[in-house]
C-alpha cells in the first residue's frame, strides 16, 4: 500500500513537471503528428511528375505520339525540349531534370526493326527511385500501332542509367548520408554547447566579461567547422575504401559546398541554443530538424516525387540543398558553378540564422 502511494507520488510529480516543460510537451504531441504527416503524405513511392526533357530528333507522327503517351502516365513532366542528347546530359548533370528522353531520327524504322531499342531514357542513376521508375516505363505497353503486328512487342525503350551504371546502393546513399550525418552532429554540438554553459552557470560569467555576443558565437562555431570537415573526410574515406564511392567532380568544390552546409547547420544549432533552456530541450529540437532532413530532403525519396507542400518544406532545409550539391559533384561530375542556386541558399541560410541567433542571444539574463 505504502509502495503504491509512493509510486503515485512520483507519477504525479512526473506529470506535473512534464506539463510545465512546454517544449517537451510540444514534442510529445508534435513528433508523432509530424512523423505521421511525413510518412503519410511525403513518403510516396508512387513517383509522379519527375522533371524530364525530350530530344526528339525523329519528330514524326509516331514519335510525337510516343512522347504524348509517356506524358500521359503522369510519371514524367516534360519541362524542356532539346535538340541533342548532349544537351539532355547537361541538364541531367545540372540536376534540372531527372530523366532525358532521346528519340533518334530513325525512330520509326527502329520500331519495326527489333535489333535496337527505338528510344533511350537517360536516367539520373544517382537516385535509385528514379531508376526504378524508368524501368517501369520500359515495361509499359504502348497503345499505338507499331506497324509490326507479326512480331512480339518490340523493345521501345532502353534505359541508360547515368552516374551509377552498376546500380550499387552505396553510391546512391553515401552522398546523401553525408548530409544527414553532418546535420545531426553539427546542429546537436552547437545547440548543446551554449545551453550547457547556461545550465552550468558559465554563461553568467561570460556575459559579464567584455566578450561580445558575436565574438562568443564565432568562437564557438569555428572549432565545430573543423570537426565537420574531419567528419566529411572520414565519410569520404570510408566511402571510397570500403564501398568504392567515387568523387567524380572537384574535391575543392565538394569541400566548399560542405563548408557552406556546415556553417548553415551550426548557425541553426546556435539559434536552437538561444531558444532551448536545457540540454534535453536542445536535443529534442535537433531531432525535430533531423527527421525532415532525412525524409524530406530527397535522401530517402526523390524530391520531385513528393507532394508540393512537402517539397516546399524540403526546400527550406539545408540538407535538401546539400544533397543536391553532393550528388551533383560526387556522382554527376557537376561543377559548383552549375548548381548556383543551392550554394546561394546555404550561404543565405547561414547569414539569416546567424543574425537571428546573435539578436536573440542578448547579453542579459532577462
Amino acid at each position, binding site marked *: 500500500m505504502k509502495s503504491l502511494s509512493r509510486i503515485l507520488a512520483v507519477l504525479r510529480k512526473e506529470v506535473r513537471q512534464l506539463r510545465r516543460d512546454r517544449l517537451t510537451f510540444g514534442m510529445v504531441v508534435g513528433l508523432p503528428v509530424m512523423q505521421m504527416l511525413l510518412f503519410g503524405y511525403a513518403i510516396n513511392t508512387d513517383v509522379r511528375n519527375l522533371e524530364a526533357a525530350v530530344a526528339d530528333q525523329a519528330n514524326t507522327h509516331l514519335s510525337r505520339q510516343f512522347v504524348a503517351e509517356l506524358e500521359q502516365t503522369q510519371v514524367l513532366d516534360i519541362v524542356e525540349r532539346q535538340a541533342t542528347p548532349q544537351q539532355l546530359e547537361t541538364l541531367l548533370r545540372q540536376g534540372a531534370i531527372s530523366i532525358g528522353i532521346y528519340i533518334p531520327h530513325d525512330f520509326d524504322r527502329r520500331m519495326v526493326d527489333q535489333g535496337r531499342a527505338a528510344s533511350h531514357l537517360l536516367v539520373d542513376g544517382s537516385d535509385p527511385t528514379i531508376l526504378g521508375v524508368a524501368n517501369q516505363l520500359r515495361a509499359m505497353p504502348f497503345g499505338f500501332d507499331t506497324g509490326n503486328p507479326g512480331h512480339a512487342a518490340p523493345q521501345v525503350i532502353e534505359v541508360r542509367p547515368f552516374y551509377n551504371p552498376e546500380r550499387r546502393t552505396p553510391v546512391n546513399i553515401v552522398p546523401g548520408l553525408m548530409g544527414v550525418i553532418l546535420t545531426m552532429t553539427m546542429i546537436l554540438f552547437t545547440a548543446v554547447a551554449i545551453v550547457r554553459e547556461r545550465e*552550468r*552557470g*558559465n*554563461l*553568467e*560569467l*561570460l*556575459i*559579464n*566579461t*567584455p*566578450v*561580445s555576443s558575436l565574438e562568443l558565437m564565432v568562437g564557438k562555431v569555428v572549432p565545430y567547422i573543423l570537426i565537420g570537415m574531419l567528419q566529411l573526410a572520414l565519410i569520404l574515406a570510408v566511402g571510397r575504401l570500403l564501398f568504392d564511392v567515387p568523387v567524380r567532380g572537384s574535391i575543392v568544390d565538394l569541400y566548399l559546398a560542405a563548408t557552406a552546409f556546415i556553417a548553415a547547420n551550426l548557425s541553426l544549432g546556435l539559434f536552437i541554443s538561444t531558444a532551448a533552456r536545457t540540454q534535453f530541450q536542445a536535443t529534442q529540437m535537433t531531432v525535430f530538424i533531423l527527421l525532415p532532413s532525412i525524409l524530406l530532403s530527397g535522401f530517402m525519396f526523390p524530391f520531385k516525387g513528393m507532394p508540393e507542400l512537402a517539397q516546399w518544406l524540403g526546400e527550406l532545409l539545408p540538407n535538401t540543398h546539400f544533397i543536391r550539391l553532393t550528388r551533383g559533384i560526387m556522382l554527376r561530375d557537376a561543377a559548383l558553378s552549375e548548381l548556383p542556386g543551392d550554394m546561394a541558399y546555404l550561404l543565405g541560410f547561414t547569414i539569416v540564422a546567424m543574425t537571428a541567433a546573435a539578436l536573440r542571444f542578448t*547579453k*542579459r*539574463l*532577462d
Partner: protein
Amino acid sequence: MSGEFAIEARGLTKRFGKLVAVSHLDLDVPRGQIYGFLGPNGSGKSTTIRMLCGLLMPSDGSARVLDTEVPGDARQLKPRIGYMTQKFSLFGDMTVLENLQFIAEIYSYPRRERAERIEELLERYDLRGQRRQLAGTMSGGQKQRLALACAVLHRPELLLLDEPTSAVDPRSRRDFWSALFRLAEAGTTILVSTHYMDEAERCHRLAILDHGVKVADGTPSELQANTGMHVVEVTSSDPYHAQLVIADIPAVASVTQLGVRLRVLIPESHANPVGLVEEAMRAAHLDTQAKLSTASLEDVFVAVTLQPRSKAA
C-alpha cells in the same frame, strides 16, 4: 579622479511579472570601501547586483556605476567591473591554470604580463598546488578562491560579489574577508551581498534589504546606534515560557531566543524597558534576570525588518 561614489542608484526597480523584486532603491557606494548588502534570501540582493552590472534591465530608475549610466553602454563598463556569481561559474572541466588563462585572454590582459599576473594570483589565493587540478574537482573554499582570483585578475575598479561565502566553511570565510580588505586597501570598491551578520559587521557601510526595499543603511555602528529600540537581554532558566510571556507584553516589538538568553526589543519611547520586563516576569512567577544591552547587528536586522505589528493584545 572622478566622483566620490562608485555607485549611485536612484529609484532602481525590477519587476518580474507581478513580483516586485527590487523597489525604488537608492544607493550611494563610496569608492574604495566594502559595502554590504544584508538581507534574507529573496530580498533583492542578487537582482540589484545584476542590474548594476548590466545583466538585468531595470524596470524603472537608473544608476551611475563608475560614472557610466546603467542601463547604457555596458560594454565599456565590463572591463572595469569584476563579478563573482553566487553559483560557481568557472569551467569545471578546465584546470585552475586554464581558467585563469582564459579569463586573462577574454579581458585582453597584456600578453607579456599574463604569466606573471597569474602566478601572483595563484600565490595570493593559495592555489599554487592546484594549478593543474580540474576546477570542478576542488573543494568549496578552493573554488571560491579561484572565482575571486578570476574576478580580480583584470584589476577591476569595482568588485561585485554575490553571496561569495555561502558555500564555504568559517575558516575559508575569514581568509576570504582578509583578501577583500586587502583589495579595498588597494583602492577597489567592493559591493558584497551576504546573509551572515558577522560578515555584514565587517563592512565599512551596509544596506539592509527586505522584500526588495532598503530598510536601513549606514555604517554598522550607526545602524546599531539608531535602531530606535531598547535592547533588553533576559536570562532565564525557563527561556521558553519566559519568551511566551514577554511576547504578550503589548510594548514589546520582538523577542529572539539565543540559548538561555532572550533578546527583547522595546521601542525607545518606552521609559523603563527593564522594569517592564521584570514586572511581567514577577507576575508570571518566572525566575529571570533582565539587563539593558547594546544592539548587535542582528538586533538591528530584526528591528528594521519588523512587520508593522498588528498586536491583538
